[in-house]
Each structure stands twice: as structure tokens, then as C-alpha cells.
């Protein structure tokens, strides 16, 4: 275990660039965010935070032109940490992680600030306070992204064999489907025969044929 932790730490040291260079993008999401939050103002306000190299507002970060702009910045400015203030990470985190991979970065070097679902949409009548909150959220994301480390999804061996517990109609169907696709199946049934309750039924709806 000691060895594996060290090697993980070593590999991390190799992957992590020596200097943290953060790019911050505050998405307007059309008017979804921008009509309540002063997106460009927020971008400007966080530009001076430590390690922030680029900070700007962006029309639609998730759109192809938006992503291209960020990818170009990654290349031009050597960015290695990305903050996107936009919608919920539950929506577009996978999108932006893929963008990082496309730009040659580890997908886990991304942090999102939820400026839409948890800010502009819920404080529509308080633009100043919403902007202050957005500023905090982006600032928190910058604080976190500076500490993020590349993560590697480990690969594990997969035994291509399945266990089915129960030999009723469901167990039988699952076993057949998997076996027909070429996987070995172990079907365990505690009764002396498979069939389950289904085998006890007479005509079954809707075909009214025998259940066996």
C-alpha cells in the first residue's frame, strides 16, 4: 500500500505542472445569468486573485465557439486549471471535463461555480446582491481549483461471468439474455427445479397460454 501511494504521488508530481495557471470564464448563458448578474464585472473582480491568468465573460461557455475560445486560451496562455461560472455542474460538468481532455488537460482540473440555478434564477429581483454572491461563488471556485490535483480513473479487471440469484421468470430471462450474448452465467435456485412462482400459474395474461 505504501508503495502504491508513493507511486500515485509520484505520478501526480509528474502530471502536475509546476506552476498553477488558472483561467476563469463567467458565462452569460445568453441572458439567463447576465440579466441578473454582472458577469463581466465578476470576471474583472476575480482577475486579480492569485494564479489567475485569464478571466473573462463569455456568451455561452458550453457552445462550440465558447469551448473553442477556452481551448485556445489553454494553449496560448498555458492554462492548467479552469473555472467556469455558469449553470449547475450537474448539467455541464461532463461537457467541460471532456473539453479539458480535448485540450490535453486532466479532466479533474475543473471547478464550476453555479451561477444560474443557484444564483441568477433564484435572485432575479436583487441584481446587486446576486452579483455579490456570484463573485463569492467564483472566488470560492478559484480557491478550490488552485488545490485540485489530476486524478486518474483506475482500471480494474472484470470477470466476464455473471451470477443470477433466483431461478424464477426474471432470473431465467436475465440468465438467457446474458448467456445468449456470450457470457457465462451461474444460476442459483434453492428449490429442486427452476421456474419459481411463475411455473405454478395457469394461463397467463395477455396471451392466455401456459406459463411454462
Amino acid at each position, binding site marked *: 500500500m505504501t508503495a502504491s501511494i508513493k507511486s500515485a504521488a509520484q505520478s501526480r508530481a509528474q502530471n502536475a505542472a509546476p506552476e498553477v495557471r488558472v483561467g476563469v470564464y463567467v458565462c452569460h448563458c445568453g441572458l439567463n445569468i447576465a440579466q441578473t448578474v454582472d458577469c463581466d464585472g465578476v470576471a474583472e473582480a476575480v482577475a486579480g486573485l492569485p494564479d489567475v491568468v485569464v478571466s473573462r465573460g463569455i456568451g455561452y461557455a458550453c457552445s462550440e465557439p465558447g469551448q473553442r475560445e477556452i481551448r485556445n486560451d489553454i494553449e496560448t496562455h498555458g492554462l492548467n486549471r479552469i473555472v467556469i461560472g455558469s449553470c449547475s455542474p450537474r448539467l455541464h460538468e461532463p461537457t467541460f471535463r471532456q473539453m479539458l481532455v480535448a485540450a490535453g488537460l486532466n479532466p479533474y482540473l475543473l471547478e464550476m461555480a453555479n451561477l444560474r440555478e443557484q444564483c441568477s434564477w433564484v435572485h432575479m429581483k436583487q441584481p446587486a446582491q446576486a452579483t455579490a454572491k456570484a463573485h463569492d461563488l467564483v472566488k470560492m471556485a478559484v*480557491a478550490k481549483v488552485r488545490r485540485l490535483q489530476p486524478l486518474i480513473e483506475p482500471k480494474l479487471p472484470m470477470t466476464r461471468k455473471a451470477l443470477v440469484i433466483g*431461478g424464477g421468470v*426474471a432470473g431465467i*430471462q436475465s440468465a438467457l439474455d446474458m448467456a445468449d450474448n456470450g457470457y457465462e452465467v451461474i444460476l442459483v435456485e434453492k428449490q429442486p427445479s427452476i421456474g419459481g412462482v411463475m411455473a405454478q400459474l395457469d394461463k397467463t395474461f395477455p396471451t392466455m397460454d401456459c406459463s411454462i
Partner: protein
Amino acid sequence: MTDAGRHPGIKIHTLSEVVDIKGNVGNFDVKIVKKARYVNEKECTACGDCAQVCPVIRPDEFNLGLSSRRAIYSPFPQAVPSAYVLNANECLGNNPVVCSKCLEACEKKCIDFHMSDETFTEHVGTVVVATGLKPHDPRVLDEYGYTRFENVLTSLEFERLVNAGGPTQGELLRPTDRKQPKKVGFIQCVGSRSARRGKPYCSNTCCMNTVKSTLVLKEHYPDMSVKVFYVDIRAFGKGFEDLYTRSRRQGVHYVRGLPGHVEELPDKSLRVAVENVGTGLLDYYELDMLVLAIGIEPAESTNRLQEMLGLQLTSDGFFLEAHPKLQPVDAATRGIFYAGCAEGPKDIKESVTQASAAAVRAIRLMQSDQITAEAIVSEIDPELCNCCGKCAQVCPYNAITVDPKNKIPAKVATAACAGCGTCAAECRFGAITMNHFTDRQIYDQIDAMLEEGAKEKILTFACNWCSYAGADYAGVSRLQYPPKARVIRTMCSGRVDEDFIWHGFKKGAPIVLVSGCHIGDCHYIDANHWTVKRVEKVRKKMEKKGIRPERLQLEWISAAEGVRFAGVINRMEELRQTVSEKEIAESIALLEK
């Protein structure tokens, strides 16, 4: 059934039970105990010569005791494997003086009294749980007289009676006089939809099963009077309504109301008293036979398997799926899937659909000889580990092994770790790093948030799966609430370390809100139980220190509860306004002592 028996890719172990499962997705070691059959499964041709000479007569389980079998028997004619089985508890034994008649009768010599139970291990990558159901025992509802009156049957017994392969070759006969009944009644919802007796849920299949049975009766005996006593008929599936209408059209009498009383008449007929909800009158019906449409209950093996595999159950006792809409056949534990009534009452079509879905979900993992594991997992530094064992105790996935007695440091089985971070929150020695949600990262977030104007801010922790999603839902619904909360997302509320809370107060937070999934809905099995314990502990300490414990709040908010999230933040804001600058400063002073 025979397809499964013949398939070269399927190895069937009957009379077998899984007694232990160890390991994780991709590599489960399954210990199976196979009881002795005392008949060589491969050699037996099911000729039946042995049963003919067997002197022991016992009730036949397959026909629910409506017929008899011998101590050596075939479970039913189409059984797979089609081998006989000997019940050692009933058999007179391998004693030539007493019996051993079957041994002599078996030409192929496939009966072996020396066979013993076998225990063996199978190594598999995925598991499909298809443990089925237990039919409701209607003796609980004594007013229906099941077992007191012989002509009261369960719907399953009725199935055997009308089955061509059943004890009466499909002819419906009354148990008491072996005569064909002229008037048959069905009582619905026996053991279902009653919080008082039986189960509170709808068993899903009994309405249509009864409708089908009435049609079978009308087909065979057009003159028979058939009555159904019901609360309401749930004919919700494809083609169901059509079948129901057909049954009504053929003269089946549907009476709205469940009988309150059944009595037996001298000729063993039954007199049923029922309040007809439609007319408001108390009606009496004389019937020759009464069938109870019994409900579906979780299989007896459910609890044992749940513990063995670390699965969750719903309040009804069936297995709980990972997500009711988007992952309806997945267990929260990766690599385990549900099929059929194990997950909830369902009919054959639904069981088959779910079984195919479970197969595909399993194949999705098995299609490659490698799988990608979760990257957001915890890591333990053995040098910092104090071997206290707390992390292993709180891990919902049993992913951590540690030996406190022999001081062997804790170790995480990365494949089993789901990344909730409860272990890291419990570790008092800083030995556990929860990747992507490290202590350092979260402290920095708190610092950034509270750097300026801390008094105005509600430090909120929200779990990714429920409360954070609930906050998103409030946004999607455009619910307006005070702009004071700042959310820090963690995967689970179990990740929220006691020290995060203290740190927040030290940095001047007026209110700290910890939010997560409702108890029982935790995405990480039961990790939020530890959240409760921790929050309670911190509040007690706050009280001792002289800090108002109300300033730490715990709320459960589900992904669908946007309204609740907005309501909670409104409440937090009211609470925040009660915290003065002075109070905050005093707390900071107390904590920095």
C-alpha cells in the same frame, strides 16, 4: 425454462443457496451451498420407477398440498433439471430391512444415499438479484376463514386447480365434496393496500390475475356465477382494460366492497356479508367457493442477501434501486442488478422486461475485460493512520480494512470505494485524503467565502445527489429566496468534517447549514447517519463552549424538493438575522482560546 436448462452458457445449481459474497464489481467471490439431491442429476431419466415403489406419502408443495407426492419425487412434470429428488427427512432411509425400495427399482442406479451437501465458490463479475416473492399468508385476515373453511382457497391454489397439469387435471372441484361449484367469489386486496393488516402497498398483479381467472371460468363453465369483491380494479397496463371489459361483458358480477365476514353453511358453502359501497347496503351472498386474491411480499431471503451484499431496502421491504427513474434496475452498489419481484411486486411481462434490462446493464460492465473505477476515492496514508478502526466502521461499503488489535493501518479497496468521504470526515489523525474534496480544498473554499462580510453569509454544505440537486431544482422552478447562502458541494453530507464547521464559525460564519439526502435515501447507503451523529456531537460541544447550538442546522432536502430548499434558506436567513456582530466575535474568541 428448458432453454435455460439446455443452454451451454448457463450452469444451473438447484437446491442451492448463496451463503456468502465477498469482493467488488468485476470480482465477486460467491460461496454456494448445494444440498444433496441423493439422485444423480445427469443420469436420472425421470422415468418415475422409484416414486412408484416409495411407500412415503407427503403433501405436494408444488400443488400447495392439493395433491400428494412420494419422498422421492419430481417437483413437477416440466421441472428443470428433469431429475427426481429425494427428501432425506421423509425417506425411511438406506436400510434394506426397512425400505430401500427405490434403490432396487432404479435401473440406472442413480440413487445415492451417500451424497452429501457441497460447498463451492464461484468467481463472477456481476450479480443479478432475482429472488422473487413470497405469497401473502391470508390467515392474518381471519374473517375470511382461510384454513378454517376448506372451500376458501388462495388465488395460487386456484391456479393449481384450474391448471391442466394440476391435481384435478384442470377441472374446478370443491375441496370438500369434489363437486363442481356453481357460484364462485373472489376477494381482492387480500394482504395488500391495508396499513393495518397485510401490506400498505398495491401488489400490482392480483386484479389482473382475478380478471383472467374469471375469464378462464366463464370459458369452461359459461353458466357459473362469478362474483368479484373489490375496492377498485387497477387495469392500468396495455390491454388490461380490454380484458376487464371482456370479463364484465361475459357476466362476471363485480361488487364494490370487501366482505367483512364469511361463515360456513352446513353444506360447506360459504355465506359472505359485504357492504356494497355502490348502494350502501349490506348484501349477503351464498357461494360454493371463495378465492382470496393474495398479495405479493418480499422473498424470505431478502434480508439475508441485503446484509450480505450491503444493499438497501424500501420501507416495503423490497430491494431499493439506485435511482427510481434513471437506474431502475441498478443497485447502489456497482455491479449488482435487480430483476423481477425482488425489486417490487410486478407481473410476468414487467419481470421479463426488467430481467432483460438487468442483463444489458450487467453486459454493459462485462463487455470489456477491464472496468473504469471511480477516480474520486479516498486514500489513506499508513504513516499517519493510528489504526483506530473508525474509518472502517463508518464506511457504508466495507471498503476499508484495518486491524486495530495488531496495529495494522487502514487500507482502502479502491474498487469498493464510492467516494462519499465519510471516512475522511471521521478520521481524527488527518490520515485520509478524500480526493477532489480534500480538507485543504474545502478550507480554502470556506476562507474565500468568509474573507469579506462573513456576517452576511450562510455557510451551506450540500450533498451532490439530493440537497444540491434540490437547490438546482429551486432554480429551475425560479423560486426566489434570500441571496445569502453560499453552497459548498460535497458528494455526501457524510463528508462534512466536524472541523469544517468549527473552521466556519472561527472565520465568522453566523450560520452553518449541513444538508443531505433524507434518512433512508442516502446515495451512499446510510452515510448520512454519521452526518446526524456528527452534527449532534458538534451542537453539544457548542452548547458547552457557550455558542448557540441553533447556529448549526441540519436539513434533509431531496432532489425534488426545490420548494423545501427555498423554504430552508428563508428560515436560515431569519435565523441569521438573530446573530449579532457581537455574538460572532464572541464565538470567534471562544474558539480561538
